[in-house]
């Protein structure tokens, strides 16, 4: 059931309840996930596979997975990059 392209739901941890797709199968115990979850190694006991499967290659980049998830109707919230705080009064910025 767990293979490359299978959409799974994480059951435990801080990403629990979020959906991700299997990118790589490392061994019997571990896979690599990406999608709503963080791109990370994951134990298969912490996953619940769903019926849907996506046609992707092994180690597919994050951008292609975003497009595939949009077709399924799953919106992924991207983190905003941190703003650089510029201190106008410091000596470095004055010179």
């Amino acid at each position, binding site marked *: 059931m767990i293979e490359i392209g299978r959409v799974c739901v994480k*059951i*435990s941890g801080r990403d629990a309840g979020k959906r991700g797709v299997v990118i790589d199968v490392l061994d019997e115990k571990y896979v690599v996930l990406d999608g709503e979850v963080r791109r990370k190694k994951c134990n298969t006991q912490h996953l619940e596979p769903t019926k849907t499967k996506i046609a992707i290659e092994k180690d597919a980049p994050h951008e292609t997975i975003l497009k595939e998830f949009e077709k399924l109707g799953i919106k992924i919230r991207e983190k905003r990059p941190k703003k650089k705080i510029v201190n106008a009064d410091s000596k470095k910025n004055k010179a």
Partner: protein
Amino acid sequence: MVGGKYKSRKYRKTYRKTPGGRCVVHYSSRKAERAKCFKCGRALQGSKLIATSHEGFLPKTAKGVSRIFGGSLCGICAKEILKTKARSI
């Protein structure tokens, strides 16, 4: 007349008979308890041992873990709910 803080329900009241035959009221603070899972009743992970009267003043991090259902369900019960939800998709 008792002080103002004893009039609220923050303290437990117990009525005691003295040797002289009088009836007096003893005030004692309530028992401190952990927050519990509403499905199975197990104590929640990450919740602090504190009296229920002070519960509102705790920081967010002391009320549970950062999982989904972190402050209301234990890990085992949350897993069961998420599994059944995933199978219906």
